[in-house]
């Protein structure tokens, strides 16, 4: 617990960047997937390696602008996104395909997928994602507060928020696309981070019931140390599974796995250095004290 001031500084930074990321997302300035903005996305696999600038000029020549290109060189796939909303779907994806078919007529292009999302759906998905996050947070807060005490609920909630913001911050810095799948990864991380915090809280409660002569800080510290080995083992095993996903799971799962990997690491950190200190800071009477 002595180290908690260093931890606060680090977490402070994370919070700041995370909030920045959220503001940018709200302004639409971050790399949002078309799930949220609406638009068209076409993913094409080329037979031979292609240069992105060739694709760009080919599309621009035919009057397409406002598009983004994402390169996946290992698998020779290119993702073309247009974030403009069309009232009547279908125009852009067809145009993109025909332009590229013509330009690269010496190759056999495989259309991996096309996604067209109208503005109404995009808005609805955004709303749904927001509701999901809020509902999950509320549900978890209530459950933890019930199983332990209110201040633990706060500690757990803030720790979880911290983890989600951390992942968002990393994604923002790395400019990786934030789409629905990433959001679902965030929710999974929230649950996982909470699990970690619960394990720590559980031990804290147990210790408070027996060690009632020791000062609060010592009890909390001891509890954390006791569960440390379990926390590390679990983090390691889950990390092994997540890393396998990240390196071998193919590029569709890639960002999802990245979110999970970051979430697991930060989640462990937050259970130790964020959740418990907040419980301490909250003050008030000794938790679980026998009356």
């Amino acid at each position: 617990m002595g180290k908690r001031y260093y931890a606060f500084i680090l977490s402070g930074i994370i919070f700041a960047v995370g909030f920045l990321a959220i503001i940018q997302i709200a302004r639409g300035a971050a790399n949002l997937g078309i799930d949220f903005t609406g638009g068209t996305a076409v993913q094409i696999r080329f037979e031979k390696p292609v240069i992105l600038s060739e694709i760009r000029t080919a599309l621009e020549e035919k009057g397409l602008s406002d598009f983004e290109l994402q390169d996946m060189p290992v698998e020779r796939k290119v993702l073309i996104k247009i974030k403009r909303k069309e009232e009547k779907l279908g125009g852009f994806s067809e145009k993109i395909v025909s332009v590229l078919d013509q330009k690269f007529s010496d190759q056999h292009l495989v259309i991996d997928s096309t996604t067209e999302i109208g503005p109404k759906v995009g808005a609805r998905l955004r709303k749904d994602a927001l509701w999901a996050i809020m509902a999950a947070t509320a549900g978890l807060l209530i459950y933890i507060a019930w199983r332990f005490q209110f201040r633990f609920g706060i500690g757990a909630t803030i720790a979880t928020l911290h983890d989600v913001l951390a992942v968002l911050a990393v994604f923002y810095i790395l400019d990786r696309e934030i789409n629905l799948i990433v959001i679902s990864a965030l929710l999974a991380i929230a649950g996982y981070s909470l699990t970690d915090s619960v394990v720590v809280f559980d031990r804290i409660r147990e210790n408070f019931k027996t060690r009632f002569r020791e000062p609060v800080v010592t009890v909390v510290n001891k509890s954390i140390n006791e569960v440390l080995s379990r926390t590390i083992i679990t983090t390691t095993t889950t990390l092994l599974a997540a890393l396998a996903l990240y390196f071998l799971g193919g590029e569709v799962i890639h960002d999802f796995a990245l979110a999970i990997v970051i979430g697991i690491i930060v989640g462990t950190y937050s259970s130790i250095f964020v959740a418990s200190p907040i419980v301490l800071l909250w003050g008030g009477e000794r938790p679980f004290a026998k009356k």
Partner: protein
Amino acid sequence: MKKKVFWRVILICVTIAVAVIFFLPNTPLFRHMPEWWKETMPRKGIVLGLDLQGGLHLEFEVEGDKAVEITSERYAMEFRELFTEKNIDASVRVHERTIEVSPIRPEIQNVIKKDFPTLTAVEKGNALLYKIPDREASQIKENAIEQALETIRNRIDQFGVAEPTIHRQGENEIVVQLPGVKEPKRAIELIGKTAQLEFKLVDDEAPVAAELPATVLPGEEETVLQQFAEKIPEGDEILFEKKENKETGAVIKLPILLKKQAVLTGDLLSDARVNIDTRYSEPYVSITFNSAGAKIFEDITGKNVKKRLAIILDNTVYSAPVIQEKISGGNAQITGNFTLEEAKDLSIVLRAGALPAPLKMLQNVTVGPSLGRDSIEAGKLAGIVGTIAVVIFMLLYYRFSGLIADGAMVFNVILLLGAMASLNATLTLPGIAGIILAIGMAVDSNVLMFERIREELRAGKTPGAAVDSGYKKAFWTIFDSHVTTLITAAVLFQFGTGPIKGFAVTLSLGVSINLFTALIGTKTAFDIILSRMKVKALSI
């Protein structure tokens, strides 16, 4: 003690067997099973999601307001008929949902009130504005959506896609999923075509008909319509016939003056088939009217010999042949320079019926089959590698007990796959990720238990007592952590779509099954070992 253990072992074996039976259809083994097995035992197993199988996911909005407009227009026509019948001179004009009748005269009002009691009227200047009341309007919209659902189902049925999913979403949306469909563009057109078939008489007698330009370039239809808007007599309209030169691709439009009132509509059809014209090897669609339609057809053709009858689909004239003689028997042909596919699709759409209101596409996700295959391969690889890594780790760290934990993990996976198969759950790529994650978490419960047992051993308890108390103490922690994950998964399930729902399903199932195996599996293994052998020290 031994008896309790015995029953638990039986339970474990039974659940494994049941899980395997459910999951069998997804494995190549299923094909080799005897016939009686394939008949009685579950056949379906886990369904692959669109992102793994490839296919089409479409979301449409049914424009219910247009359906109300169409009904208003129908009422307006009935007004006109009524006025002609009663020899009343009044003008009827439709503007979106209101029907404007002028001038205002009590006899007109009474006549309308008698036959159309539900319509409300509002005075505006020199005219009465009639409107369909809200309750009737929402009924029309509701019917439109139900009918659209039916029609789309019919069309897709005839198009021939294996296991399509068509359902209503929310108030006025329809979701269509066509897994494995080979021609997505054709399917989309087929679904979205309004397919309003109408037969209208061509008005060659009005003087303005001779003034119409012979051909019009596409894009200039509006100008032509505006130009002649005042000159066309009331009850007439101008529509365009499309002529495409198949070699050059040049398209021109021919304006035709028609009597607005359709003499026949597509709902009077009983059949539509594709035939090939032997002279030019051109496909055409031959339609057959039902008995009511055939009678009207005979009537119309009899009264209008030498006049032209236009065949119109979705307000485009396909052809306007001259009626040579009275036609009985209710057969007609629709020609229009079709390719075989176009003719086929037209016949499907005529057979299945017209859409009551236009569909507005909200979302279209097309996944090619190759992407799905790649993803499955990658997912499998990641799963196997991840599992091996975890297994090795557990063995190294917990020694023999690690083996027990690994066994519990395998038990978990089998049950999870079986549970998903029994629900015919849809497996998506995030769903595979959920399974892999659940593997990692499955180990967590065991880790919690083992760490506790180690502590109890360190405190000096005997192996048996250590296992018991370690287990008891760890239980509530395991419970809490699983419930929190379940809450998250439940939220994901509620708010997620498609692939994310798949993730929520596998996560919830995985976590719930984990609780079960944690209760039954690992402890049982320890109990068996402890009761059968004299264990002095636990390998943990």
